[in-house]
């Protein structure tokens, strides 16, 4: 009996040992490059996050850490981890595919995140003055009892902050970010009533019942229209419980679904490009907001970009400082050069011409260089943006048509038509510069398809965007079979050349369902050396034909980084 049990035990141990060895010693093996559900269209969020707690990210520390700690440079520069296998960003609590992937009309973009008609007319019930940020404002309830965060234009700067919020809100919504609903309202002081429960935080740090003088203090800092009203933005209270902002690095440790370091999220890296386009210089945790919502009975954290009105040429209280968008708040080498040269180390921001419009501020597109644009403080995500992230973002920027941009600028509801025109003109100029800089910095082939006749078609994003011509010597296409288990490839036929972005596959493409082919495309043009880097495209044969399953523009890890 002992002998029988002994055999059983020894056999089991041996089997487990062999299995463990096979599982761990081999190439991780056995994990295929493409799963059956690739490419994902939605980022899974499987865990209940309802135990997430509100936190406060210290503004002072956030600024100091990003300015002097350079947190984004400490790890190898890897590919964004929130992209699917076709190098796109699936929908998630961070991002929703809109412009560039969905069909958006001009009116869709102009409506943006709005779902209703705005605050109910009637008397506002003021519950407290606005405490965050510099813009004067209140938290108020409208006649229906809905809560709104209302902010005014600063005294002396009519339409500047409110116009920027209206326009930027629509831009960032179209780009895919979660945005609050912002409505333009005109408020007469007589429409404001202080709620019985309204409290105010005094300079002494204490809270007390709000008084009429507190209300008047806020209005005194706000711009009064000739008719006595105050133009304001009413931002609808976000659904769910607010949790504080998110950092541009690491993950939220109490959110189980937050497993991708924020600095490796393309949606945040892409703000390098989106920020450059709109001059979103105030990129900080304090301008973000997480909320806990419930979906399908499960708590999920949704991530909002807040205060996107910190854009274009004006801040909450005044036009931008001249160096904003051109330099970080602190750049040691430039400080030293200016110091020892008595200031004669002159930078572009010191001489660039602005068409200064009081409603738009200092915003220009002639000297603008998107690759040199900088927010006040570099975030970890900002410094880790790679060429493929910038390319992805630039395609979205380029998807905004001139008409769309002009409609967005008009949505700022500036009384001075020149203001809207200036804003639109500059956005168009900056858009085109972004396209030129980032669509050409990488092999820009896109929109791949392999049809039933085994003919490959694709497009060139730079050509589509009218920032480049077709490559002088056309494209070279190489075909391979691809073993999804081992990653091995075998060439099929000889490379083919095309100038019209159509290439018939050589004979020998696999016909079995589930088979994968790899197609490697390069563009040859002396003017665009970056186009010679191949883009690897993968198609999987399904029941209804070939389906795109993979796109690789850059290796997972690249060494070059521009701090």
């Amino acid at each position, binding site marked *: 009996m002992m002998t029988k049990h002994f055999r059983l035990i020894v056999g089991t141990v041996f*089997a487990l040992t062999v*299995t463990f060895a096979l599982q761990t010693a081999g190439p991780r093996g056995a994990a295929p490059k493409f799963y059956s559900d690739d490419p994902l269209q939605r980022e899974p969020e*499987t865990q209940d996050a309802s135990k997430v707690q509100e*936190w406060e990210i210290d503004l002072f520390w956030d600024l100091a850490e990003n300015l002097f700690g350079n947190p984004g440079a400490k790890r190898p520069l890897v590919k964004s981890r929130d992209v699917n296998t076709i190098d796109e960003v699936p929908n998630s609590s961070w991002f929703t595919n809109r412009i560039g992937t969905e069909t958006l009309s001009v009116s869709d973009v102009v409506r943006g995140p709005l779902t209703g008609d705005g605050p109910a007319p009637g008397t506002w019930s003021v519950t407290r003055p606005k405490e965050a940020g510099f813009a004067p404002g209140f938290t108020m309830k409208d006649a229906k009892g809905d809560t709104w965060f209302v902010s005014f234009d600063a005294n002396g700067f009519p339409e500047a902050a409110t116009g920027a919020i209206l326009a930027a809100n629509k831009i960032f919504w179209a780009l895919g970010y979660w945005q609050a609903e912002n409505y333009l309202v005109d408020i007469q002081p007589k429409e404001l009533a202080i709620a019985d429960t309204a409290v105010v935080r005094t300079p*002494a740090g204490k809270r007390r019942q709000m008084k009429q003088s507190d209300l008047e203090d806020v209005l005194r800092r706000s711009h009064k229209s000739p008719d006595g009203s105050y133009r304001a933005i009413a931002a609808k209270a976000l659904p769910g419980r607010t949790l504080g902002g998110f950092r541009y690095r690491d993950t939220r*440790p109490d959110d189980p679904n937050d497993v991708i370091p924020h600095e490796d999220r393309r949606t945040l890296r892409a703000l390098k490009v989106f920020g450059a386009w709109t001059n979103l210089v105030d990129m900080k945790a304090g301008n973000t907001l997480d909320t806990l919502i419930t979906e399908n009975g499960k708590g999920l954290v949704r991530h909002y970009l807040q205060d996107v009105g910190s854009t274009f040429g004006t801040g909450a209280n005044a036009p931008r400082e001249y160096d904003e968008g051109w330099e970080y708040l602190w750049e040691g080498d430039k*400080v030293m050069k*200016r110091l020892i040269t008595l200031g004669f180390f002159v930078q572009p921001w010191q001489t660039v011409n602005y068409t200064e419009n009081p409603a738009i501020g200092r915003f220009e597109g002639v000297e603008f260089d998107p690759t040199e644009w900088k927010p006040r403080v570099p975030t970890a995500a900002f410094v880790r943006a790679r060429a493929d992230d910038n390319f992805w973002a630039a395609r979205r920027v380029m998807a905004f048509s001139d008409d769309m941009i002009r409609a967005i600028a008009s949505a700022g509801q500036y009384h001075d038509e020149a203001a809207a025109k200036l804003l639109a003109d500059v956005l168009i100029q900056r858009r085109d510069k972004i396209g030129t800089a980032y669509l050409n910095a990488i092999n820009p082939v896109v929109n791949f398809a392999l049809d039933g006749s085994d003919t490959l078609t694709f497009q060139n994003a730079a050509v589509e965007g009218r920032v480049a011509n077709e490559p002088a010597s056309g494209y070279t296409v190489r075909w391979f079979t691809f073993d999804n288990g081992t990653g091995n490839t075998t060439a099929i036929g000889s490379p083919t050349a095309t100038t019209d972005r159509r290439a018939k596959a050589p004979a020998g493409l696999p016909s079995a369902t589930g088979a994968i082919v790899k197609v490697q495309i390069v563009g040859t043009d002396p003017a665009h050396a970056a186009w010679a880097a191949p883009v690897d495209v993968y198609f999987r044969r399904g029941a209804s034909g070939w389906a795109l399953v993979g796109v690789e523009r850059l290796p997972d890890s690249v060494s070059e980084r521009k701090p």
Partner: protein
Amino acid sequence: MSRIDAKARHPLRYRFSLTTICFTVFALIVIPRLAGAQDSRAAEIAAEQSRKATDLKAYQPSGAEKWAIRLRREFIDLPSGFYPYFGSVYSGGGFTLGAGFRQYYGDRTHWDVKGLYSLKSYKFLEFSTDSWGHAQGKVDLHGRLGWRDATQVSYYGLGMDTVEDDRSTFRLKQGYVGGNMNVRPVRPLVFGAGATYEDYSMGSGQGNVPSIEEIFTPVTAPGLGVSPKYLHTTGSAGIDWRAPGAGYARRGGLYEVRYHNYADQDKTYSFDRADGEIAQHIPILRETWVISLHGLVQTTLSDDDQVPYFLLPSLGSGSTLRAYPSWRFRDRHSLLMSGEFRWIPSRLAIDMALFYDTGKVAPRWDDLSLKGLKSDVGIGIRFHGPVATPLRIELAKGSEGMNLVFGGSAAW
């Protein structure tokens, strides 16, 4: 060796092989699934989230972050409580160390106790109350009760012809109580008014130079030997549009006149003085450079009034003739003109300046000409915030050598 023989010699071998094969096959199929290998991308991500769900924790700030937050809360945010205090007891007193305690008793009103002690044993203690933003933010009110002891204040004699070797010192103790108000009815107009009772107690100077009474007489040091008590009233009017702020300006200006009435309680040393001050900041190339100009005239209004030596207009160090020591020149009237070529290495924190100061003191108003001026040149670095200049370090050279100036405010 036959197969049967082998079995006979190794009775376990056959069964062992079957068992092993079965378990191995089973394990190879089942264990990857149990161990977490996934067959879909979604499952792979879900597994990662599932693992994190077992290890959730609240955010733990680093030690440096904790310190930064603590410093901000205790020294910037918290309006009530202890705070470090660096200031000046009296010009020429040297570095100070000090602390204060502030307590709010209204929305914008607090009382404050603060004290300083300097390297030269100067001492300062003050109880004050400040209340800002009355009348729709247009009026600020301040009250002060304080005492200072300056143990070795320099005195070189009257006029511009004194020499360094004539330096003597005196001790000044001053108790005071009073208040003032600042009014900004409409930008950029500014008005001020105040009244302070000042009780001076004068004595022999300390240190290693002669005390004032050893060198000077009441003729060469008016009021020597007296310790007057004054009701000091002031009034001022001006326009002030310095920006970003008066404590750190890169543009705008200040044009202001001030009137002082020192009413001696014994009537002997009463006098009136008027000050006129102009400061203009001219930005060049988007504040890459700033030309800052400053003029200050102080004049005793009546030739018949007697002004005690320690309240005479003076020039030296600080933001006056910066190459000269504090209180280097004193007389009944003074004229100061300064110009700075400033450049801004960092809008966040650092300013630099090349400067030129020139000025004189004179016994009569008519003598305030541009002849006989003392001058200096120098270079300075200023560490500033958005609207304040907490540290200014300047090296200046004049006819009497070099002087290093440390200041806790903007030059003007």
